[in-house]
C-alpha cells in the first residue's frame, strides 16, 4: 500500500519532466525535413499532389504546430497516445506489441551484467593486484571498449555463420509454431547473442564499480570489528562486506536505465529484434510523430519505473534510507 502511494507520488513528481520531454521532442521534430506523408509517398512510390494534400489532412498535419502540440497533449491527458502513421493502428497497441522483446532483452542483459559483474568484481577485489584481479580487470576494460554492434556482428559471423550454433537474428523461429516450453527455449535461444551484446559493456562497468566498492568497504572500521570478532574471511565478506559493497552498483542500475534502452536500439537492429528500439528508429525515419512520442513517453515511464524499483531495492538493502537519515 505504502509502496503504491510512493509510486504514485513519484509519478506525479516526474510529470513536469515528462511534459518537458514530450513538448521538447515534439517541437524538435517539427524542424525535421519532410513529414510522415513524404515518407509514405516514398514507400508508395509516388502519387499526385492532391493525394498528398488528402493524406496530410488524414494525419492531421494540415493545422498549425501549436494546434498539433495542443491536440497531442490534450489526447495524452486522456492517456491516448494517438494513431500510428506507419502501422495504421493506435500507438498504444503498436508499442505494446513491441515492448516484450525489449523488456526481455533489457532484463536478460541486466541480470547477466549484474550477476557476473558482481561475482567477477568480488573475485578481483579479494585477489587485488594478484593475477586473477589483473586478468578480470583487463577483461573488463576490453569488454568496456568493444562497440556493441561490432561485437554483435562478429558474434553473428562466428556463432551463426560458421559454427551455426545460434540463430542470426529474429525473436523466434516462426516456420515452426512452438508452444509452451519449446517456445520459451526458442526465444531464449534467439536472445542469447543479443543479451551478451547488450550486456557486455554494463558487465564491464558493474565489474569495475563492484571491485572498487568492495575494496573501499573492506577498508572500513566495521570490517575490522568483524575481524576482531574472529569471523572467518569468507563470513566477513559474505555477511558484512558484500551487502554494503552492492549499494553503489544498485544506484548505477537506475542511472543507466536510459542508456541501456538506447543501446537496445542498435542491438535490436543488428539482430533484427522486433523491439521498441527498432520501432523508434523506424518511426524517426518515417517521421511518425505519434509513435515516436509514444515511445519516448513509454521509455521515460520505463526509466522512471526502473529508478523507482531501484530506490525500493536500495531502501530494502540499506535501513538508513527508510528512516531518512
Amino acid at each position, binding site marked *: 500500500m505504502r509502496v503504491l502511494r*510512493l509510486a504514485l507520488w513519484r509519478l506525479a513528481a516526474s510529470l513536469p519532466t515528462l511534459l518537458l520531454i514530450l513538448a521538447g521532442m515534439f517541437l524538435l521534430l517539427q524542424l525535421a525535413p519532410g513529414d510522415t506523408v513524404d515518407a509514405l509517398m516514398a514507400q508508395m512510390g509516388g502519387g499526385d499532389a492532391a493525394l498528398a494534400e488528402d493524406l496530410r489532412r488524414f494525419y492531421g498535419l494540415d493545422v498549425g504546430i501549436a494546434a498539433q502540440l495542443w491536440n497531442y497533449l490534450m489526447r495524452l491527458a486522456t492517456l491516448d497516445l494517438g494513431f500510428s502513421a506507419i502501422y495504421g493502428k493506435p500507438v498504444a497497441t503498436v508499442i505494446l506489441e513491441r515492448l516484450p522483446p525489449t523488456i526481455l532483452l533489457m532484463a536478460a542483459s541486466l541480470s547477466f551484467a549484474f550477476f557476473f559483474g558482481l561475482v567477477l568484481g568480488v573475485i578481483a577485489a579479494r585477489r587485488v593486484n594478484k593475477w586473477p584481479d589483473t586478468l578480470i580487470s583487463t577483461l573488463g576494460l576490453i569488454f568496456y571498449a568493444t562497440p556493441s554492434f561490432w561485437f554483435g556482428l562478429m558474434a553473428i559471423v562466428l556463432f551463426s555463420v560458421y559454427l551455426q550454433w545460434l540463430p542470426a537474428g529474429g525473436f523466434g523461429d516462426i516456420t515452426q509454431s512452438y508452444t509452451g516450453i519449446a517456445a520459451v527455449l526458442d526465444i531464449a535461444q534467439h536472445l542469447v547473442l543479443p543479451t551478451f551484446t547488450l550486456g557486455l559493456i554494463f558487465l564491464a562497468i558493474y565489474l569495475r564499480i563492484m571491485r572498487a566498492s568492495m575494496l573501499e568497504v573492506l577498508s*572500513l*572500521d*566495521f570490517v*575490522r*570489528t*568483524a*575481524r*576482531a*570478532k*574472529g*569471523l*572467518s574471511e569468507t*563470513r566477513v565478506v559474505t*555477511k*558484512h562486506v558484500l*551487502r*554494503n559493497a552492492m549499494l553503489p552498483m544498485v544506484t548505477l542500475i537506475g542511472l543507466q536505465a536510459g542508456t541501456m534502452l538506447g543501446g537496445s536500439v542498435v542491438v535490436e537492429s543488428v539482430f533484427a529484434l522486433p523491439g521498441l528500439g527498432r520501432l523508434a528508429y523506424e518511426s524517426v525515419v518515417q517521421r511518425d510523430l505519434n509513435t515516436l512520442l509514444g515511445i519516448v513517453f513509454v521509455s521515460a515511464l520505463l526509466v522512471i519505473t526502473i529508478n523507482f524499483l531501484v*530506490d525500493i531495492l536500495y*531502501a530494502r*538493502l*540499506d*535501513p*538508513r*534510507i*527508510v*528512516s*531518512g*537519515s
Partner: protein
Amino acid sequence: MTRLLVDRLTVRLPRGADRSNAIENVSLSVASGEILCVVGESGSGKSVTASAVMGLLAPGLAIAGGGMALSGEDLCALSPEAWRGVRGRRIAMVFQEPMTALNPLMNVGAQIGEMWRVHLGLDAAESRSRALAALREVNLPDPEGALRAFPHELSGGQRQRVMIAMALALEPEVLICDEPTTALDVTTQAQVLALIKDLQKRHGTAVLFITHDFGVVAEIADRVAVMRLGHVVEEGTAREVLTNPQHDYTRALLAAVPGLRAPEPRELSPDTVLEVRGLTKTYASRGLFRRRKPVRALDGVSMTLQRGSTLAVVGESGSGKSTLARCVVGLLGTDGGQVVIGGAPLPTNRRDAAQLVQMVFQDPYASLNPRRRVGAQVAQGPIAIGVPAAAAMAEARRLFTMVGLDAEAVDRFPHEFSGGQRQRIGIARALAMKPEVLVADEPVSALDVSVQAQVLALLRDLQDRLGLSILFITHDLRVAAQLCDVVAVMRNGVVEEAGPIQSVFAAPRSDYTRSLIEAIPGRALFSA
C-alpha cells in the same frame, strides 16, 4: 596472574614512512582484573600496539621482533586459523569510532549473536536470547528494541555499549579498548567508563585501555604506560605516574591537561560588542521516503559578549552551540531573533559582515583550501574589501609571525603544515579582517593536548595584545575554564545557565551544569 604479556615487541612500518618502526621494544603486561592504560598523543604507536595484540596489523605493518603471550600461550606462534579462534573469544576489542565500528546494514541482535554462532555454533534463537542478556548487562534502555535496531538508530553512547556487550560476549580473558570514549560527550563518557570498570571487576577481565586523555586515565587506570613515538617512556601505577611523573614528557603532558581551576576574574569592559537576542533556528530535514519532524536547534537563545572578553558557550553534541556560532557569523539565516554587533544588527551583505565578525573552525584539515597557498587564503579577504594585494600580502606575513609561524610560510600549501599550525593559519585568516568579534568553534578539540595548550595560549595572548572579543564554542568545560570570563551552558537549543565562569563552577545553578562538571574525567585529581 598475567593475562596478556607484550615482550619487547617491535612492529616495522612500510618503507617511506616517517620512521622505521611503529613501535620499538614495547613491553607491557596486564593481569586479570587489572586495567592498564596506555597513554600517548597521536603517532605514539598505542593503537598499533593494540592491533598487534589482536593480530590485525594493517597491511604493510609487520612484527619485526619480540613476542606476545596470552595467559602464557605464545600468540606469535599461532596460525592465522588459531588466531581467529582466539580473537573475539579470548581477546576482544572495543574501537574508538562507535559511529563506524558497527555494520550499518545489520541489526544489533545479529551482530552480537554472531559471536556465539561463529565461536560456539549456537543456533539463532539461543544466540539471540544471549545477545539480549548481554545488552541487559551493559544496561541499554529497552534491550529488546535495541536487539532489532540498526546501528544508525542508536546514539553514540548506546553503540559503544553494544560494542562492549559484543566484546564481552564470550567472557574474554583480555579486553582491549582503543579510545572507546573519545568520540563521546562527557556525560556519556563518564557512564561508559563506569560501565567498563564495573564489568571488568565482575568478570575479572584484563583490560588494555588506550587513551590520550589523562583525565580518563585518572578515572579508571590501575597501571599506566606512557608511550611516545613508539616507545614506552614511563610505566607505573596510576598514582605514581599521575602524581609523581618521572619522565619529562609525562610531566609536559600532565601540565598540558587543562585544570578546572577557573582563572582570576577580570574587570570586563562595560560596552557590549555582541548581543544575541532571542535567536531561534529550526531545521526541517527530510528523508527520502518520509518527512521527519523538524528539529529545534536554537530556541530563543540570548547572550551578550563584552568587548575584549571571552564568552564560552559550552554544550554537548546537539545542544545547538555550533548552530549558534554559524548564525552569529551569518552563515545561517535565523528564524527569529537577531544578532547585534557593535550596536547594529549583523548586515546581510557578506562584505560588510566580514569586517565585523570572523570565525576559527574546528577541523584544521577541512578549514583550508588544499589547492591554494595559505598566504593567498589569508590575504584574499582584505583584497576582497579593497586592500591592495601587495599590502594584503605584507599584512599576511605580519600575521603569520604574530600567530607564531614563519613569515615565509605564506607561500606553502596547507598539507605542508601540522594540525596546530593550520589552526594558527586559521586564526591569522580571521584576524586579517580585523573583526570586532572572533567566533572560535571548537578550535582545539581536534588537537593533541600539548598542541591544544599552545593554541589556547596563543588565543589568550592575542586577546591581551589586540583586545579581541571572542565567542568560544566548546564541548569541554576544562577548555572553557582556560580562557573565558563568562560561560553559557547550552542544552537542546536553550541556555541552561550563564554567568561568570568562577561562579558557575563554584555553584552551578542547574542540575545539568552540575552533571557536566561531575562528569569531567579526572576531576578529583586535576581540580585539586
